[in-house]
């Protein structure tokens, strides 16, 4: 605690020096420095949940107000629950709109195409340019214009039981997809009790993990054919990926065939899991005496990034947050300054120290070099986004993929189910 505080103070000092140069150069761009000073105002920043650590919040407020005398910055905490409804209404109101908002990277495309966010293409260079996590920038880009920038990332990786690996005679973590599947089945066979034991814990609705198998096999969820999107689950590659998933469902998983992936620490601590693919923060819950089992199975956690068929990390679904400026905000310039601070090395350093993957590639090393950091960085290195189709929100809204994977988990005919899902997606993807 003390350490991070000291770190934050140091970072603040360093930034004051840095930003002095920064503001000089931008003044130069704008001609006279008087014109570029925006009118003082209160900038409202919406951050979601408790992901952003308090240190970072304090630093942002303090630094912003130092650099923009007369202006203030207020962080208003919002919840992920109901965020889309809230943004849908608030961003449309000139009087009530927040100036800067955090939004889930998979939610962002819903708003970027709709004109809810200001165009940030011109600032991209100053904010980090090529150093920014490219997948996030791509996901927020419509017709060559970028409407949101990455805030932090976090992709899922594999947790495994060290003791069970040893007992089953698995000496090293799998390095290819085939080995991964074999190990998962081997674990299941080595542990006949409890009956719902999972070599790989894979609840039926979990298409977000399931997508990795499709992508690894070279397939995709949907493809863009000259502006016309269509489902591509029927392609040979996608089918191969779905068959891998079905193999895991039927031969390696004991999770409910129609269940969801919530609360994975519960089956882990009940001794029902050999491997599972979850976000890194789940370690914290397993190792918390109130929510998990730190003294028993918590001691047996090992992690690695899910391996792909070619030996490099498998393409998993990219997770994380974007940051954007409301187009109805009356204080565009101040909002830009706030965003610049949130992407500054100092601010991102605080995020990294708290286990969030920073928005810039160059800062990834700040995560440390333990097993967890390595798995995080490896998993993010090959991560992919859901298709950027205009109607993707409809696909997620109607839960086509949850239904598909759950039917596959129940042993249904893969090509038949894929064809049905493609048909449903075709009517939704183009908005």
């Amino acid at each position, binding site marked *: 605690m003390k350490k991070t505080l000291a770190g934050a103070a140091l970072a603040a000092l360093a930034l004051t020096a840095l930003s002095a140069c920064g503001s000089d150069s931008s003044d130069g761009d704008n001609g006279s420095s008087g014109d570029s000073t925006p009118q003082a105002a209160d900038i409202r920043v919406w951050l979601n949940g408790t992901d952003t650590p308090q240190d970072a919040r304090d630093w942002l407020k303090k630094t912003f107000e130092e650099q923009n005398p007369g202006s203030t910055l207020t962080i208003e905490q919002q919840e992920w629950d109901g965020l889309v*409804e809230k943004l849908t209404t608030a961003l449309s109101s000139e009087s009530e709109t927040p100036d800067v908002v955090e939004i889930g990277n998979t939610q962002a495309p819903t708003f970027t195409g*709709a*004109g809810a966010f200001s165009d940030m293409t011109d600032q991209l260079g100053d904010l980090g340019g090529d150093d920014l996590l490219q997948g996030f920038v791509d996901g927020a880009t419509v017709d060559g214009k970028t409407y949101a920038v990455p805030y932090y990332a976090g992709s899922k990786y594999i947790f495994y039981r060290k003791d069970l690996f040893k007992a089953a005679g698995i000496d090293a973590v799998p390095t290819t997809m085939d080995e991964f599947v074999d190990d998962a089945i081997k674990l299941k066979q080595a542990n006949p009790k409890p*009956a719902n034991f999972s070599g790989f814990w894979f609840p*039926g609705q979990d298409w977000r993990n399931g997508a990795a198998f499709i992508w690894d096999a070279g397939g995709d969820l949907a493809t863009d054919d000259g502006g016309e999107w269509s489902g591509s689950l029927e392609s040979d590659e996608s089918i191969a990926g779905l068959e891998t998933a079905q193999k895991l469902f039927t031969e390696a998983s004991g999770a*409910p065939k129609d269940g*969801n992936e919530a609360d994975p620490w519960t089956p882990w601590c009940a001794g029902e899991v050999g491997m599972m693919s979850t976000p890194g923060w789940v370690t914290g819950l397993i190792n918390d005496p109130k929510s998990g089992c730190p003294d028993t199975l918590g001691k047996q956690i090992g992690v690695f990034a899910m391996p792909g068929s070619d030996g490099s990390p498998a393409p998993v679904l990219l997770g994380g947050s974007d940051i954007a400026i409301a187009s109805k905000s009356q204080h565009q310039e101040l909002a830009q300054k706030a965003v610049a601070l949130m992407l500054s090395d100092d601010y991102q350093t605080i995020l990294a120290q708290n286990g969030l993957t920073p928005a810039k590639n160059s800062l990834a090393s700040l995560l440390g070099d333990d097993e967890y950091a390595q798995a995080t960085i490896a998993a993010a290195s090959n991560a992919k986004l859901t298709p950027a189709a205009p109607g993707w929100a409809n696909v997620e809204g109607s*839960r086509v993929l*949850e*239904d598909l994977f759950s039917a596959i988990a129940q042993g249904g005919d893969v090509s038949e189910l894929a064809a049905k899902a493609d048909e449903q997606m075709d009517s939704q993807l183009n908005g």
Partner: protein
Amino acid sequence: MSDTAPRPRRTALPYVLLVPAIAALLVALGYPLLRQVVLSFQDFGLAQQFGRPPEWIGLDNYRELVTDPYLWRVTLRSLVFCLVNAVATMAVGVGLALLMRHMARSVRILLQTGLLLAWAMPVVASLTVWEWLFDTQYGVINYLLTQMGFDFEGHSWLLRPLSFFFVATVIVVWMSVPFVAFTVYAALTQVPEDLLEAAEIDGASAWSRLRHIILPSVRPVLLVVGLLQIIWDLRVFSQIYILQKAGGSTHDTNLLGTYIYRLGIGGGEFGMAAAVAMFMLVLTVVLTSPYVRAMLKQEGEA
């Protein structure tokens, strides 16, 4: 309208009495409703929400809606679900209200407290708890059934649509019965005690007292409560939404409420959502019109 009023007189008083209610309804619902109707004729999505001018597309939203065979399947499913749930809720609720008259005071207060607790439980909590109770792996219901020697270990209650709707019915009825029981019981307290005693002395059976004295005097309240059940059960949303997240197949278990949500608000297509809402309004009006006519006829007699 009718001349059989208790005391026909020309006075502005009734209009004055209606002013506050009408004003509140107009202000808070008038504009939003009007806008809903307008939206249903427009291509109104998120882009329009953030300022792009909407395009008038006439009946396109409606055309797209009614030509989708899935909508009709969902509608039929919703009608059946609504009927089963409304009947079950009314039967249990009115039954409990009638029984309350015959219970010992202590039992009645116990039951009323229990119903009130169930009613007062925040929806988030009650839906979560029900989801846990029916959970495939850690559910109390599976645990108890397994302890009793049945093979329910790892049984998924939501996997098959029929079983899914059974669970949904249990939750919906559990959530709505307190309202029905309370309101009907309140109405029953109005039934004149001396009238009942006189009938009993005259030798009227319990059944005929119920039919000829009790039910007629609570009829207005029964009708409005029953109507509300039909309306609410036709557009039931959160229970289905939460259960779909927990398991089962969304496509096979969508009802109109969740379908509207997934079609419109979930996907940001507000024009379409408005059209479905208008469709549901018409459906409700048609469905309840015999019922409403009965209410109005009684109104004329009153």
